[in-house]
């Protein structure tokens, strides 16, 4: 693939009219970019996924929601090949991630942006170098072009003025925005956001939502969001999956999914302690744990 085709930001920097969609990337519903088929994962004896099936359509923003510990981050790790499942398949752009060699996996990852839950900025580098890192590793772009691209991305997340700061000088929300700038620096075909809204103030949250939407609309990038904030998801996502007990228990339009009437959505979106998802981690008898005889409980 031509370098210009891979790095959509060059289109942004070129003097040609900016296209609303990338003609090189199909944005139809024809074939999902990510297909999860019969994925089963067991970690430390606990079944995380039980024959999970899921499709992530191209050019759309798909949100994955679910109770804590249900395996949302693990699913992202499966998609990026950081973790192998015990059974089933994960196909990304038609490639079975589990079957790829390390070099093939790295080739695939060059086209995937990943926003880590804890930002994962490189602490030896300042903000500018953190965002420039993928460009320096995988391109031979001139210093001037790298500078322009990095400043463009930092401007997009509102941190161009923080380019010289070290990660230790950033707040949690700022670090997250820098990590977001780094994740999108390649304008990849797929961006995976793991809890992108945590720690953001309302202004930054709104700008990040707009940025995710703009990237999706203008460059046809496929986005997967793992988040708990339904209001934010309603604003930005096209489709939402609710996973619990190792399976997809509900899916649909984020604006209406909360009203579908199933016990899963009622409990999750209503924030109720009682329902199919136990609030309490499995434990022995409460009264006995406190030292009371069973009859007094």
């Amino acid at each position, binding site marked *: 693939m031509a370098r210009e085709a891979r790095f959509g930001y060059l289109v942004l920097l070129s003097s040609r009219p900016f296209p609303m969609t990338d003609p090189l990337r199909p944005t139809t519903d024809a074939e999902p970019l990510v297909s999860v088929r019969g994925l089963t994962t067991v970690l430390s004896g606990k079944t995380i996924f039980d024959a999970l099936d899921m499709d992530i359509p191209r050019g759309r923003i798909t949100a994955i929601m679910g109770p804590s510990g249900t395996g949302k981050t693990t699913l992202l790790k499966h998609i*990026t090949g*950081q973790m192998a499942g015990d059974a089933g398949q994960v196909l990304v752009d038609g490639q079975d991630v589990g079957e790829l060699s390390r070099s093939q996996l*790295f*080739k695939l*990852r*060059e086209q*995937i942006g*990943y926003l*880590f*839950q*804890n930002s*994962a*900025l*490189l*602490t030896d580098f300042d903000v500018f170098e953190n965002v420039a*890192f*993928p460009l320096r*590793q*995988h391109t031979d772009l001139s210093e001037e072009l790298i500078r322009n691209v990095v400043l463009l991305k930092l401007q997009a997340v509102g941190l161009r003025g923080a380019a010289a700061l070290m990660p230790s000088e950033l707040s949690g929300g700022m670090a997250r925005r820098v990590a977001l700038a*780094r994740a999108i620096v390649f304008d990849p075909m797929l961006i995976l956001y793991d809890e992108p809204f945590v720690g953001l103030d309302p202004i930054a949250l709104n700008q990040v939502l707009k940025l995710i939407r703009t990237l999706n609309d203008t460059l046809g990038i496929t986005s997967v969001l793992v988040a708990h904030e339904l209001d934010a998801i309603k604003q930005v996502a096209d489709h939402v999956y609710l996973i619990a007990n190792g399976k997809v228990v509900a899916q649909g339009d984020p604006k209406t999914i909360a009203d579908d009437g199933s016990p899963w959505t009622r409990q999750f979106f209503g924030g109720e302690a009682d329902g199919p998802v136990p609030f309490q981690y499995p434990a022995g008898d409460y009264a006995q744990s406190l030292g009371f005889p069973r009859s007094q409980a």
Partner: protein
Amino acid sequence: MSAQTQRNMVTEALAQIGQCGLFLLTILKAVPGSFRYVRETVRQLWFVGAMSLTIIMTCGLFVGMVLGLQLYYVLSIFGGTAASGTVVAIAIYRELGPVVTALLFAGRAGTSITAEIGLMRATDQIAAMEMMAVDPIAYVVAPRFLAGLIAMPLLCSVFCALGIFGGHLVGVTWLGIDNGTFWSNMTANVDVWKDVVNGIVYKSVAFGAVVSLIAVFQGYTTPPTSEGVAYATTRTVVASSIAILALDFVLTAFLM
């Protein structure tokens, strides 16, 4: 301690050695790829080499001074103080230089390498590199391994030079051994290949490889917790010290 527990400990130790060996193969495979990151290797060389100079120079000086003092009193019993230059040089070149430098290197540089890589793992920086399609073995591990390999003989040379200077300071300047005798006996009896090269080149390169390997292995495989990093750092010092002394015996037996 039950026999079963002892067996488990031995099995675990053997498994660790095996994993460490496999990790070495992984590093060696990644070394050609790490030549892209020459700047990172040079940065690490500065960090583990140049930044260790103070402790190496100070310890080298005092080891030489102690050696000069002890030898003077022992050799004066037999009227053989003229040989103190020779004995100081041979002891430092053959044994004390490479061994003490390696032990200091493990304490100063090995622990920091382990802690740094361990913290990078705990804060997902290693995973972030993997996700950016950058091989962390080539970018993080191999440069540190190579830097240790290069730094050790250089540090050992400095240690030996300062050690002999310390021996000279005590023996000649303070206790009155003849300066010409001190140097002429040393140059006449110290063999460049047998003593200097064996110690500064063979032994220190081997020790550098072992300490660096243990440090990067412990850092890379540590559980991503604060307790895990602390434990891995301790293990680096303990395992390196044992490995250095054991390997020293083997190398000495072969290089005699």
